[in-house]
């Protein structure tokens, strides 16, 4: 179309004006953009630079090495061993199926496991490492390492895992660790971030759990550069963690192994304590279990096997099990009466085999009675009637008070799980808990360690050590932390009359060494190492009148769980006590038969610090002992030590 010049001129002028306007607007907007750039990049640069660093840099925790456990001689009890595993990163592997096929020719992988693994691999982000095989042997790892070129994406990894080289022998001493569970986390208000490290292990039971804070150590940290997907590109900085405290226990591993073996398959517990320091030289509960099973998470089958066993292998009977102390309590009753001044050591009681207390007849274990009994004879022969009579004179509250002074009914501070308080009843206690008034019959029962009275084997050992020394010896399990010796459990004097204590000790000596003593059969012949002890046989049931009439009271005829508990406490050597021992054999029958021999053998092992010579045993037992020593796989009797002594 042809336009007139006038029209063209008009349009062109208007175009020119509007060009200036639009161009100006554009220029202005570009100025705004430049200004914004200046604001972000020059004025706020520092702030954004910091944000970029935070984006890029990620701090990750490094699991600290757990403190190790040693016995008193430095033998290893719990250690951290390298644990190898094989991991795969899908995005590095290329053909995953092919790589896994190659791998399965080198390392055995269960086909069902393999299917699960593949499913997991395809579900996870490609850069995430997935564990193919855990706890792989060194051989397998080397084979994988050598064949690395044909296994892209596969890396052998090493981590630390708890290991208990002593196996079952220390299961009850130190407990075990295990992977952190959701339950563990739920118990904590502000869980330490270290617990969230995959595969981190914490103490679950026993010392491992009680001393978790010392053993855990402090996590280290590494600073890594990550991309937006969280994949680690490189490590920038690393600060290693601080290893947990190494603990040296008071336990003697060699003795502990012996005790555990000596208890054998019985459901039993034994404690041997150093009278001077309170050191627990061995603290064994039988049957035990392999704590290594728990470290990676125990299988259901294994766990069921442990829980369904009627001998309760998971229970640490030394501190958790409480038993009526039976006749081993008689020292307490006697000492309470002596200290109260209500009897003298020469005072006698007539034992016709029973005694009328209130409206009930209390029997002595010896149907025909013991005749005239003084303190020494009553303890030696374990006459019950004597103690019924003494208890009537001194009263239950004084007996209980004495029991508490000797360490019964008191929760001792030990780094073990569920340490039992036991039970030493008083009149108030019965009123409070059972809402019944105390009966005189209860006192009679308590005087011979029956009825409400309950004590753990560990408490019985403490009682014996206190009787042997007159000091408030208390048990100690940790000898030193990172080489720093811990305070001992020697204790202050109990303030007991030394003469009274001597009467008790002498009576205990006779129990073991007098021909008529209940533990004469389990004496020590070696004059330097004579021991003083006390048997106990505690009933777990009431003998019915019908049973008594029928005369079916023989333990062997009863089902296992209704048989009597066998107990024995002792200290040795008599003249300068070094060790106090308590042995409880659950439903083992008579204390003199089932418990005393074990206690004697343990004592001898400890005194000789190794296998004792046969001469220390009563002559008629030697043949049997020799066979037993062989069976327990001990080295032949210490010839050197024996000849030294000769």
């Amino acid at each position, binding site marked *: *179309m*042809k*336009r007139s010049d006038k*029209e*063209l001129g*008009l*349009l*062109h002028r*208007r*175009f*020119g004006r*509007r*060009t200036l306007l*639009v*161009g100006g607007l*554009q*220029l202005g*907007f*570009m100025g*705004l*953009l*430049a200004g*914004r*750039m*200046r604001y*972000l*990049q*020059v004025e*706020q*640069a520092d*702030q*954004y*630079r910091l*944000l*970029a*660093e935070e*984006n*890029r840099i990620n701090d990750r925790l490094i699991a600290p090495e757990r403190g190790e456990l040693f016995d008193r001689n430095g033998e290893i009890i719990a250690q951290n061993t390298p644990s190898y595993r094989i991991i795969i990163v899908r995005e590095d592997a290329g053909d995953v199926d092919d790589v896994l096929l190659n791998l399965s020719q080198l390392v055995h992988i269960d086909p069902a496991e393999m299917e699960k693994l593949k499913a997991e691999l395809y579900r996870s982000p490609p850069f995430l490492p997935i564990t193919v095989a855990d706890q792989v042997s060194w051989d397998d790892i080397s084979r994988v390492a050598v064949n690395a070129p044909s296994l892209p994406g596969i890396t052998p990894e090493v981590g630390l895992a708890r290991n208990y080289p002593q196996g079952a022998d220390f299961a009850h001493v130190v407990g075990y660790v295990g992977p952190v569970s959701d339950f563990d986390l739920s118990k904590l208000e502000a869980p330490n971030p270290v617990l969230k490290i995959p595969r981190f292990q914490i103490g679950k039971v026993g010392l491992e759990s009680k001393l978790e804070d010392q053993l855990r150590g402090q996590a280290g940290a590494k600073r890594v*550069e*990550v*991309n*937006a*997907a969280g994949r680690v*590109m490189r490590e920038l900085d690393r600060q290693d963690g601080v290893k947990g405290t190494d603990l040296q226990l008071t336990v003697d591993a060699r003795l502990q192994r012996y005790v555990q073996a000596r208890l054998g398959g019985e459901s039993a517990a034994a404690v041997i304590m150093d009278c001077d320091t309170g050191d627990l030289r061995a603290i064994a509960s039988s049957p035990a279990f392999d704590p290594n099973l728990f470290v990676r998470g125990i299988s259901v089958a294994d766990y069921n096997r442990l829980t369904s066993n009627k001998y309760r292998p998971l229970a640490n009977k030394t501190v958790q099990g409480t038993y009526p102390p039976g006749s081993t309590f008689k020292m307490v009753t006697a000492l309470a009466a002596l200290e109260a001044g209500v009897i003298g050591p020469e005072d006698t009681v007539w034992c016709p085999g029973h005694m009328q207390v209130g409206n009930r007849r209390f029997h002595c274990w010896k149907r025909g009675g013991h005749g005239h009994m003084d303190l020494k004879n009553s303890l030696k022969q374990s006459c019950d009637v004597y103690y019924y009579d003494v208890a009537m004179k001194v009263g239950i509250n004084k007996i209980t008070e004495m029991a508490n002074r000797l360490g019964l009914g008191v929760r001792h501070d030990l780094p073990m799980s569920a340490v039992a308080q036991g039970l030493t009843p008083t009149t108030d206690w019965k009123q409070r808990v059972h809402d019944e008034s105390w009966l005189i019959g209860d006192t009679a029962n308590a005087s011979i360690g029956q009825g409400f009275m309950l004590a753990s084997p560990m408490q019985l050992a403490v009682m014996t050590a206190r009787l042997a020394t007159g000091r408030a010896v208390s048990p100690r399990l940790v000898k030193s932390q990172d080489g720093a010796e811990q305070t001992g459990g020697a204790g202050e004097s109990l303030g007991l009359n030394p003469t009274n204590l001597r009467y008790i000790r002498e009576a205990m000596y006779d129990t073991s060494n007098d021909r008529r003593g209940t533990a004469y059969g389990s004496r020590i012949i070696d004059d330097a190492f004579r021991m003083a002890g006390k048997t106990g046989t505690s009933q777990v049931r009431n003998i019915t009148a019908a049973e008594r009439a029928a005369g079916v009271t023989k333990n062997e005829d009863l089902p296992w769980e209704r048989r009597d508990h066998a107990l024995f406490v002792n200290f040795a050597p008599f003249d300068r006590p070094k060790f106090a021992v308590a042995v409880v054999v659950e439903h083992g029958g008579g204390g003199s038969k089932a418990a005393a021999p074990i206690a004697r053998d343990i004592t001898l092992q400890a005194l000789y610090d190794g296998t004792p010579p046969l001469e220390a045993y009563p002559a008629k037992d030697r043949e049997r002992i020799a066979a037993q020593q062989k069976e327990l796989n001990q080295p032949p009797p210490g010839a050197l030590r024996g000849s030294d002594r000769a």
Partner: protein
Amino acid sequence: MSFLEYNVKSTPTGFRKLLFLNWPLTLLLAAAAGVGFMMLYSVAGGSMSPWAEQQMERFALGMAVMLVVALIPIWFWRNLSGVAYLFGLALLVAVEFFGTVGMGAQRWIDLGFMQLQPSELMKIAVVMMLAAYYDWLPAKRISHPFFVLLPVLIVLLPTALIIKQPDLGTSLLLVVGSGGVMFLAGVHWGYFAAVIAAGVALILAVFQSRGTDWQLLNDYQYRRIDIFLDPSQEPLGAGYHITQSKIALGSGGWSGRGFMQGTQTRLNFLPEKHTDFIFTTLAEEFGFVGGVSLLIIYGLIVLFCIVTAVSTRDRFAQLVSFGVAITFFLFFAVNMSMVMGLAPVVGVPLPLVSYGGSAMLVLLAAFGLVQSANIHRPR
């Protein structure tokens, strides 16, 4: 309507035309594309593939297209405007039926050797159509309501199709760019005042309608607006793009962290780092200096187009050159505003730099029109 109508005093012919090519503009285009190659090389972690190499090939092809377009007289293109417009419209309809869905929107037609975005083509086709329209329209009718409504329909028809894809960014660009061309053509300013007033009212209505039955936008669009207004609302969610992009820009500082040293880019914190957000890489690695340099290159490109527009007396050439300048300007202005947190995240690439075939080819063809206007201007 033949080109013989024009009073041509002297125009170069044959290959002499190449001498009259606007060489500074050509070099500036190459410079902007060169920045793009560098950034694509960098975001690929120092590698020509997968982006830089292909982008170079497309640029070479685009330059060839530009030269061809430039050598053909501008009046030929004017006469082709209607055809181009109808062709673009047909493609937009075709994309409705045969288009490939990408990033939640239907935008591409797969041509085998490349992905064609008809909406890119349409931006230039509409500018050409409007320029041709005003070239034909007698001056006294320009502000006549009927003759204002006609170009508005020309614009709104493709806009409606593009919104439906849905591609809000491109449709807004199209409307604003076309408005610019109409303004330059001399339409009475009262219309623009009315439209702007209506626009403000519409924005208010959009916000008022939220959550009611007559809600005007999709929920995701509202969310984008929310997050644009306050990116910290959702630093890992939808606000992630803006937050990370601002961090990248800010951490670049005055002179940047150095070529290939940008941690935000290197470590994949940036989204769409090779397309819409490529400016952040430039700003992170070359800092304020790098960012402003690119802005100056862009500004000069716009300036040369405007100079071409004012130095010709051919009305079609004027309007097309300026229309291309406005479209190009809107591209980079919106992209940069978005990256700097001044505008909501709408899918607009950085012209000549972002990885993308259609945009590059169409833009260079459009600059071919400007070059043609320059070569064939009556002297």
